[in-house]
């Protein structure tokens, strides 16, 4: 595989339409969607920019966490009195109505914590799109990151600057997190 160069095209905050056009143009030059990544300081949905939908495992992890929480609650409600049969005389150790409270709280706890774990794990796990960053993104600018073969360079330059973008070649991936 020939070594491709990462380009970052920066658009101004209000140039959403231009960004969408630029993405169209890049696709027209034969760059597939997988090699393009859009970074922005404000959330633009994929639909607005005409990009394929991204997909996340967060809901699945969240539901798995809820199930785990439910099982823990079941263990606490009904398992512990069976495993540790201390007689507390007169009182029923396993009661269904009060168990609802524990079931609810622990299911929710499982759901919410695992949602966070999902976000955390997905955030720190490596992504395969083109990496690159510019601090101006958090100023609201829209960045289009893409890999392109060197021979497309002049054409790219012309099209993107024509749309009002500022192009940075070969952006280095700065270390943004601890490791």
């Amino acid at each position: 595989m020939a070594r491709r160069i990462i380009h970052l095209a920066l658009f101004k905050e209000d140039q959403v339409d231009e960004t969408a056009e630029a993405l169209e143009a890049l696709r027209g030059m034969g760059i597939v969607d997988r090699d393009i990544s859009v970074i922005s300081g404000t959330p633009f949905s994929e639909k607005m920019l005409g990009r394929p939908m991204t997909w996340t495992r967060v809901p699945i992890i969240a539901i798995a966490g809820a199930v785990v929480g439910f099982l823990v609650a079941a263990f606490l409600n009904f398992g512990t009195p069976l495993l540790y049969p201390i007689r507390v005389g007169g009182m029923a150790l396993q009661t269904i109505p009060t168990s609802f409270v524990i079931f609810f709280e622990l299911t929710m706890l499982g759901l919410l914590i695992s949602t966070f774990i999902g976000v955390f794990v997905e955030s720190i796990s490596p992504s395969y799109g083109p990496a690159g960053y510019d601090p101006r993104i958090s100023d609201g600018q829209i960045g289009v990151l893409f890999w392109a073969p060197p021979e497309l360079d002049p054409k790219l330059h012309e099209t993107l600057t024509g749309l009002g973008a500022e192009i940075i070649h070969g952006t280095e991936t700065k270390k943004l997190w601890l490791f």
Partner: protein
Amino acid sequence: MAEQIKEQVNERWGMVIDMNLCTGCNACVTACAMENNIPWVGEDDAGYGRGIYWMRIQRYWEGEYPETTPSYQPVMCQQCGHAPCEPVCPVFATVHSEEEQINLQVYNRCIGTRYCANNCPYFARSFNWFDYSYQIPEPLNYYLNPNVTVRRRGVMEKCTFCVQRIHAGQEQAKAQGRAVRDGEVVPACAQACPADAIIFGDLSDPNSRVSQAARSQRSYTLLEALGTEPKVIYLKGEGTYGG
């Protein structure tokens, strides 16, 4: 085997207090305090409403001054069969004993949420606001009963029906290979009562003295409508002394 059968028998300890006989003399309260290592909280705290009593004589005045008549009623933990204090404890520090059919307070398990005391409709529970055991001067600590735990600060305590005496009676009977006799186990209050107004015994035995007394037409329990099924049964007085 007789031994085997005895293991399965549940005693149901109960108490009958005859309000006709009670004179409100407070002997039971004193005896209880001595038997159960009940701390002396000091004048200021007692006046503030923090006196620790496992039982107390509730005194009400009837009529307008100067024509007032007092009425008395000794009240202690009613050892409810359906106790409101038990389910609310987060750590099982107050539980029902299946063996003696009384309510237990496990001092070393208590973490001091005081929820049980709020939920007790009889206000039978006392809280150790401070560490009173440290205030006992040196030779005086010999008055403490070794069979009863000296409570530390921050735990709830209440009448146990002198469970240490119940245990001692059972132990003795078992060592001699027989069942506990009626009247063998006597809590401190019943022992001290000069009028013999307090009768203690096994309610599951229909011939015991306490069962016979409990079948009296004068019998009632405190706050019966709450359905707490107390093990302390009062015999209504005729108005001479008690209420």
